[in-house]
């Protein structure tokens, strides 16, 4: 009996206990960049040394290995398209040929679990070198000494070459470099359906709403809707939240001002929510369960006439259903009057616990220079928006079938990215009083708490699925935004907003 209970207990333990990491204590040698000691002769018996305060850069101490052993650099990436992985492998092979003592290990991870993968890997002491960085966690990662400064890498690549927002900096140091951007200010539309309905492409929200209504149809007369005017997710996750932020900006609203005060309790914010919900009524009934690829699937299956997405929809459509791609265009997504959209870069960083910091930096420079990044960004043309103008031009000039056929669409996507902002990096990008859109680099320190659970998307779900009024849902979201900000500020009482009023 006792043995049975013990076995049962053990079984339950194994099933229940979450994996808790062993805390790894790492000693980091501090490299003192500059020290000045001044000795001055005075009319006293003893000498007085004067120390000058200097800047200290914390860098990991590189390992040394026996001759003949390869230095392994792990490259964790969320880019898992087969063509992207193929290009990665080419770039890795090229680098390894030039550096035979280095082995680059590509590790593919899911973007939805990127943060948990990184934090868990760190907690268990797993080897990591080159990693992707979610911008909402920038402040937390830097505070935790998770990242290696990349100032020298950026300088060597040419700081002025990079577009605004493609370098993440904090406290005067660069920590992440954008390798591919996206934009969620664009809308893919079925040209054939618009022509059939005698509609022009919408340039205002009212026209968009009218088009969505007109294109929602029962095409076979059985009383059931066969095609929906638009596919708009309303689930409580990033696929909804990111689309909603475009509506927020375009309706002249934001979550916080530049000083970190909640400004979401605002008529413009309410309008942005109401418009999103109003448009969503012309979406398929399962859109509350949608995540990222469900919209592409519905569009490819011909079940929706419009879908807001970045460049990937066009490329995937061309690959999977070229006849539908021929009758598809991409336009600016008019959710409001302001020319603004949620968009930004995917960033690459260097983990502070890497065994080979210099080699990893060298590889980063190699990857982000020459034609290599252009080759990667061209694997999904229009979706992976390069961080420099030169790379954009290089991609448009490439001898690639998709790029040649749809260069105008790709230019539309590149142009839309000029109006990008993201609340986690540009807190207070839009002033609700003046509607001035001025994304100034201003990381939101509590972004992880706001966007980890996707409070804005939960708000939409409360209205669409929960049947709450927009006012009540907005009031709830305001309360949550105040709570997460106040909690973070209480734990960090010395924090002052970097941008003063």
């Amino acid at each position, binding site marked *: 009996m006792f043995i049975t209970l013990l076995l049962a207990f053990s079984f339950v333990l194994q099933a229940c206990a979450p994996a*808790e990491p062993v805390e790894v204590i790492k000693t980091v040698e501090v490299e003192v960049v500059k020290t000045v000691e001044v000795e001055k002769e005075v009319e006293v018996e003893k000498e007085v040394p004067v120390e000058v305060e200097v800047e200290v850069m914390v860098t990991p101490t590189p390992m040394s290995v026996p001759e003949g052993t390869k230095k392994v650099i792990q490259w964790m990436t969320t880019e898992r398209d087969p063509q992207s992985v193929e290009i990665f492998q080419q770039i890795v092979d090229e680098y390894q040929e030039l550096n035979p003592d280095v082995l680059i290990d590509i590790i593919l991870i899911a973007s939805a679990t990127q943060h948990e993968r990184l934090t868990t890997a760190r907690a268990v002491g797993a080897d990591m070198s080159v990693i992707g960085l979610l911008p909402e966690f920038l402040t937390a990662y830097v505070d935790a000494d998770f990242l290696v400064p990349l100032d020298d890498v950026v300088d060597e690549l040419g700081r002025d070459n990079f577009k605004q927002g493609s370098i993440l900096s904090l406290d005067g140091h660069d920590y992440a470099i954008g390798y591919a951007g996206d934009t969620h200010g664009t809308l893919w539309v079925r040209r054939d359906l618009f022509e059939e309905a005698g509609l022009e492409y919408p340039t205002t929200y009212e026209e968009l709403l009218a088009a969505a209504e007109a294109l929602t149809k029962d095409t076979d007369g059985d009383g059931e809707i066969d095609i929906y005017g638009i596919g708009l997710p309303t689930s409580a996750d990033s696929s909804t939240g990111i689309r909603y932020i475009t509506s927020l900006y375009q309706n002249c609203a934001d979550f916080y001002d530049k000083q970190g005060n909640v400004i979401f309790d605002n008529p413009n914010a309410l309008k942005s929510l109401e418009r999103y919900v109003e448009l969503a009524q012309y979406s398929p009934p399962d859109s509350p369960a949608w995540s990222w690829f469900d919209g592409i699937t519905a569009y490819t299956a011909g079940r929706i006439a419009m879908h807001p997405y970045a460049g990937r929809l066009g490329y995937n459509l061309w690959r999977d259903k070229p006849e539908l791609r021929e009758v598809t265009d991409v336009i600016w997504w008019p959710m409001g009057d302001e020319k603004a959209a949620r968009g930004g870069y995917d960033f690459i960083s260097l983990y502070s616990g890497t065994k080979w910091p210099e080699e990893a930096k060298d590889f980063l420079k190699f990857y982000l220079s020459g034609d290599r990044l252009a080759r990667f960004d061209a694997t999904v043309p229009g979706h992976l928006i390069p961080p420099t103008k030169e790379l954009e031009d290089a991609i448009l000039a490439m001898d690639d079938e998709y790029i040649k056929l749809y260069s105008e669409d790709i230019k539309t996507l590149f142009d839309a990215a000029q109006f990008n902002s993201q609340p986690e990096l540009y807190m207070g990008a839009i002033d609700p009083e003046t509607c001035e859109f001025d994304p100034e680099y201003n990381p939101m320190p509590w972004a992880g708490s706001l966007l*980890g659970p996707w409070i804005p998307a939960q708000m939409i779900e409360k209205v669409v*699925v929960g049947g709450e009024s927009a006012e009540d849902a907005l009031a709830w979201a305001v309360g949550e935004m105040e709570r997460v900000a106040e909690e973070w500020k209480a734990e960090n009482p010395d924090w002052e907003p970097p941008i003063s009023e």
Partner: protein
Amino acid sequence: MAAANFKIGKRLEERIFAWGMALPAIIALIILSIYPFFTALQSSFYKVDTITREQTFIGLDNYLWVIQSDLFWASLKRSLVWTFSGVSIQLLLGLVFSLVLHQELKGRNAARGLVLFPYLIPAVVAAIMWRFMLSPTLGVINYLLIDVFNLMKTPFTWLARPDTAMWGVILVGVWKYTPFMIILFLGRLQTVPTELYEAAKIDGANSLQLFLYITLPWLTPIIMVALMLRTIWLFNHFDLVYLMAFGGPMEATTTVPVLIHRAAFSDLRIGRAATISMFMVAILMVSTILYTLAYSKSEEQLSN
């Protein structure tokens, strides 16, 4: 004396051998279960930063939060619905299928192989596959129900409605995990002494009586084991539930394991996640003890 010493030496040798055989499993249990359990228990009294793993002692705050949290109790209720609905349906279907597959029917062996198929598919694949199949705009299930069998007029949004999402997940769980019950029951059915049936038939017992007085009592111990295992596994189950509906819509599929995941990786509160898991351990221990007692009783009755 020499014989006694020899006997003691042999017994000691056997004990050492037995412990030696068990030692790898014990070490694995300590490393993979007991140590993480106590680490989680410790974390439950701390506020743990997800990134730095810095710990701040907060006493029973996490426990008080869980007890006072409507979200936790609602998740627990959903876990109980998910677990007991799933276990009951799997048990009934498992019993029926195993009895059918135990009969001497043509194609029985092929059927036994096919019935295992859902169990072999990884939960991730099953979840993604069923999400597509249950889609009202793209899925084959609604197509079959509406266009082929004319059982419905409008597509059913299985996973998009809070009142049906959990049932959609339960049905997929039943499809996936009933084969486990079938395997267990089939194995046990092979061991029923046939002379019991022969004797009962001679005494005039009909099929129902054969089932109620011979088959079912013989199966009862294995049913208890199956119920215990499936209860623990289903209560703990994360991947199928999460991947089908991501805890939504409106938290309709947020069971306790999904809540733990959310606490750890969305809300960034490792200590809270550890605390919720402690509540899970307590609940499962109680139910395991009850099942074990029921199992012992059923074995006793069978031997009588």
